[in-house]
């Protein structure tokens, strides 16, 4: 039981970290960025490349270098997200929402197979591995590495929350989410704020990518697909567009999967997760913490 909860929370914190980018972009420009999971993949691969390059300078790649790589990767994938927005989404800003959605799917394929061309189709193995002996806490086996990763994830989420609720940038983001046209008229640089949102969301996904690469070890060019869908599910469960809801949604999804697998067997894991997506969409489409939006005419 304790083990199931711990498994769920650990996976859930990854889901939450990736889901935040989804949720932010949706909150601001009402776009479901299906290429978001591939930014996670891009993060894992750029982290891999940087560790490889770093290994050339520093003889022993250590935890410290992993941390440096994490920060550098966040920068890289953040810029990748900005470029993606500039190339694929901004030209379609005024277009119907369906065109944007299709573009997002196209961008997702472009990223996946672009990485495949560069890095090859075979899975890669991270040179630095977080591997530790498990400590038993209340019947659950927990490793220090898991704890560290969860603390990093939680730290990033708290920082993001502070950014959105306390800073000027955050206020601009929230304002654009409410009414982009009015913001434009009030002199807010809407394009810059949207770019910044993409930067932050993609940087978080990239961080999750590096963490997953270092923890699980294996990365491949299609790794972003399933986690992208899971992050979307987490965002919907928690309330897409709502930051705290999204974090909660990630944890809830992780727990649901953990218990669902235990109850029905491993092959039912995705059925269970996406079944909940459907359930939420029919019963409570705004998610756990989402508010009902009244359409003004």
């Amino acid at each position, binding site marked *: 039981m304790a083990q199931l909860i711990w498994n769920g929370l650990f996976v859930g914190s*990854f889901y939450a970290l990736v889901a935040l980018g989804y949720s932010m972009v949706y909150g601001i420009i009402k776009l479901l960025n299906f290429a978001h999971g591939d930014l996670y993949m891009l993060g894992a691969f750029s982290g891999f490349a940087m560790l490889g390059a770093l290994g050339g300078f520093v003889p022993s790649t250590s935890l410290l270098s992993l941390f440096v790589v994490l920060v550098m990767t966040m920068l890289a994938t953040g810029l990748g997200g900005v470029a993606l927005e500039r190339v694929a989404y901004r030209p379609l800003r005024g277009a119907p929402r369906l065109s944007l959605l299709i573009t997002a799917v196209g961008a997702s394929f472009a990223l996946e197979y672009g990485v495949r061309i560069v890095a090859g189709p075979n899975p890669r193995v991270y040179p630095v591995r977080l591997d530790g002996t498990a400590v038993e806490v209340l019947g659950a086996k927990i490793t220090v590495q898991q704890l560290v990763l969860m603390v990093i994830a939680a730290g990033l989420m708290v920082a993001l929350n502070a950014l959105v609720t306390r800073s000027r940038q955050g206020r601009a983001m929230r304002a654009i989410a409410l009414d982009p046209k009015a913001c434009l008229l009030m002199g807010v640089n809407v394009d810059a704020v949207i770019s910044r949102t993409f930067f932050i969301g993609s940087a978080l996904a990239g961080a999750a990518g590096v963490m*997953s690469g270092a923890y*699980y070890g*294996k990365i491949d060019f299609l790794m972003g697909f399933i986690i992208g869908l899971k992050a979307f599910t987490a965002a919907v469960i928690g309330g897409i567009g709502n930051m705290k809801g999204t974090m909660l949604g990630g944890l809830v999804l992780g727990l649901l999967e*953990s218990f669902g*697998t235990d109850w029905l067997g*491993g*092959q039912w*894991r995705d059925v269970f997760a996406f079944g909940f997506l459907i359930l939420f969409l029919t019963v409570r489409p705004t998610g756990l913490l989402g508010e009902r939006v009244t359409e003004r005419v």
Partner: protein
Amino acid sequence: MKRPAIPALPATARTTSRVVALTSLLAVAALSTTGCNGLVGGSAEGDDKGPIVLGMAIPMSGSSADTGPYMKNGAQLAVDEINAKGGILGRKLRLQVEDDACDPKTAVAAANKLVAAHAAVSVGGYCSGATLPTLPIFDKRKIPMVIPAANSNQLVSQHLKHVFLINGTGSQQAAAAVAWLSKDGAKKVAVMNDNTSYSKDIADLTWAKLGTTGAPAKAVEEAVNPGESDYSPNVTSVLKSSPDYIYWTGYYQEGGLLIRQFRQAGYKGKFLVGDGSVDPKLVKIAGAEHGEGVLATMTQTPQTTPGAGSWIASYRGEFGAEPGPYSTQSYDAVRVAAEAITKAGSTDGDKVTASLEAMDGFKTFSGPLKFTADHTLSNGGFVILGVEDGQFVLRDSLK
């Protein structure tokens, strides 16, 4: 070929022209499906001077494009060796490779090309799904197939007369797994698969054999969804049944992650993996300390076959690279085909098939060859490999 009757229609000018068009279309279709005898190719059947064509439809592009060149090289090596000794029946051999891209539609086109080129024997077949639709194409032309790699039970379950497998089947792999588990003293075995037809086939067959007399007890059968990173829910639920042996029948990507996550969760028992997991990457993903000692059921590879040293050397000399998976099987397929044609004294399909069926004790990498009534190997040729210093080496030949 019988021409289908054309329904009598009022003979207006338009319908007449339609009928003419339809008839000529049918005629062209009939001509092309009979292989355009005498129209294409210089090596028509009955020409005793031209080379004997061996057709090989294998993936040279697509998802399994890595394996195709290994198979092609292995087959080419055998062809070159036989030609250097003067060929068979006084004729040279010629290998014709067509790309099946591991895709059923492309494979059918490739098979038709080989038929048109008057292949005497087909020595190709890697992806079972792509090989299946080519069976009737070759069988109809009475072209014997010596399939080197594809090994789904479906390939032989149709009982086509001209189809032979020289790679062990899923049921033989399951039998080898259970034989090893019993031999190694396993008490309670968990079987895990990744829900693909290849993996689930082996897992289900193994699961059915467990718990019978002489075999270890059943722990749990569990499936994972490939493509994820975190398998901790699966690990937790498998460990609840406290197995002392885990048999994983999927591929190495998930296999490596599972081994690692099982060890981190405190599992102390042994691992056995199927042939899809035999790749040094498995150990890399699992981490060297976790991968050490993992066992595998595997058909013979050049690296694990005792006495293949000189063969590997000549492969290296010819192609400047290490032989890969299924190069020995492809090499054997060509030799088996050549032997059958020699014994039959002709390239006639029925005669070659008869001599394949009569074959007994022909030396191949997977042991002396004899086909069962199903046209599969009487001895599956599965061996047990074990990881030592990050590499899979032979542990037990199960003989």
